């Protein structure tokens, strides 16, 4: 209950943030602009609209998660509003989880708006409801939960600018996890391959939550693969939040 109150307050605070609206407008403009881009092509017009729309949801969602997420805990400490909260009977873990859930709710609303725009456009182009896009949108939302957890984790011990740099770096590396593995398999010796395999397991593999290309091509996404990917996203988010709670629990706030 106390977590829900913090989450709701975080949501209310986040929707007052101007950066949110700027990014949302940018995403909707990107989705709408895909129609203009598609007119430059011969063939693949609907594919271009869907690819660009899904990429806009992922990219803008990531920027919202990072730029709002990195300040969530740190700003409360800097403004000293945290001290009024922790004097109440509330655990630090509840505070961190509430902050995370509040931003997750904000992202859910934003992703829903962007997805509605994309669905409307794709359905108009194809003269049918493009329901299949809901699967990649859903997995993109799980990817954004991982990104939010990364941002919240850094926010528990670092200043927003540094947290944003760390988060962007980790998200970039996480997006390239499979390319990194491929690179090691192609060019590296046994030692490098073993090291990269270890790093591959530890890093967030954000590419595993991307099924957009398959769905856009009308290729089947096995239910087992989608379920495992969703489970991976939730498990990784839980792990990151556990570390965030642990770090914040023992942080000296004096």
């Amino acid at each position, binding site marked *: 209950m106390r977590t829900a109150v913090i989450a709701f307050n975080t949501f209310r605070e986040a929707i007052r943030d101007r950066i949110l609206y700027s990014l949302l407008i940018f995403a909707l403009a990107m989705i709408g602009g895909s129609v203009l881009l598609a007119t*430059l092509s011969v063939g*693949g017009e609907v*594919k271009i609209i869907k*690819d660009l729309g899904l990429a806009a949801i992922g990219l803008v969602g990531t920027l919202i998660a990072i730029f709002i997420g990195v300040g969530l805990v740190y700003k409360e400490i800097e403004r000293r509003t945290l001290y009024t909260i922790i004097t109440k009977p509330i655990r630090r873990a509840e505070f961190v989880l509430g902050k995370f859930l509040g931003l997750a709710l904000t992202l859910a609303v934003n992703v829903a708006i962007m997805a509605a725009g994309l669905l409307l456009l794709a359905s108009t182009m194809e003269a049918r409801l493009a329901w299949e896009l809901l699967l990649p949108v859903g997995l993109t939302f799980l990817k954004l939960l991982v990104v939010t957890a990364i941002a919240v984790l850094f926010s528990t011990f670092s200043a927003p600018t540094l947290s944003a740099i760390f988060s962007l770096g980790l998200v970039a590396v996480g997006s*390239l996890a499979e*390319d990194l593995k491929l690179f090691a398999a192609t060019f590296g010796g046994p030692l490098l391959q073993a090291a990269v395999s270890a790093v591959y397991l530890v890093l967030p593999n954000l590419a595993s939550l991307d099924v957009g290309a398959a769905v856009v091509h009308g290729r089947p996404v096995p239910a087992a693969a989608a379920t495992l990917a969703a489970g991976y996203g939730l498990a990784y988010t839980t792990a990151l939040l556990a570390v965030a709670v642990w770090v914040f629990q023992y942080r000296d706030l004096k």
Partner: protein
Amino acid sequence: MRLRFQTACLAVLLVAVSGAAGLLRALDDIRPQVTAEAEPPWLPPAAVVRPLFLGYHALAADLFWIRTVQYFGGHIQTDRRYPHLYRLVDLTTSLDPHFLDAYQLGGLFLVIGRAYPEAIAIYRKGIEHNPGRWELPHDLARMYFLELGDIPAALEWFQRTDGLPGRPHYVPRFVARLQARLGLVEAALEMWEQMLETTDNEWVRETAEQEIRKLRARQRRAAGAAAPAPRPGGGGPR
């Protein structure tokens, strides 16, 4: 006071914007212009492009495909030479190996550029990555039949098409015609007519109409001269 301030701001804005636009036009007059048909710069391999797009490979493929279309469109209206076309299509399809339109239209662009070995390479690459799709063996068979007049190769690929789900109803008829080596010009005509009927692409439609006109004229000439029917090869707009 407030109105005067706002009017001053607006005036400065208008002067600055029109000044900037004027300076840009003056700059455009003295510097080399970027055009759609300009040669693409050095094309990096797919292994380099993939990481740069941070996992958005399909989007990267879309952007390179648009570049391919612009490149082809620019050259077909000018020198009709396409030295970078194969590398552009190859890069696009390496970034998104299931991009069917890029294989089909890219292959057709290469055929139009008479780059037959490259077109075959693209179709074969597409078939390798999309073994369940009938479109690519069908297009390869069509190229062998219409462009190269290679009946055995066309027959082989039409037979492969025949075994794939969703293939058009006319494929078994083509297989029978090619096996009997009968009515080849009629088969060529029917192939273009089927293409005209099934495509939703304006550019492909125009190409098919052009080829149908050519083949009908050839049929009329052949009937007038009562000469043996010419081989089907040699089609495609030039």
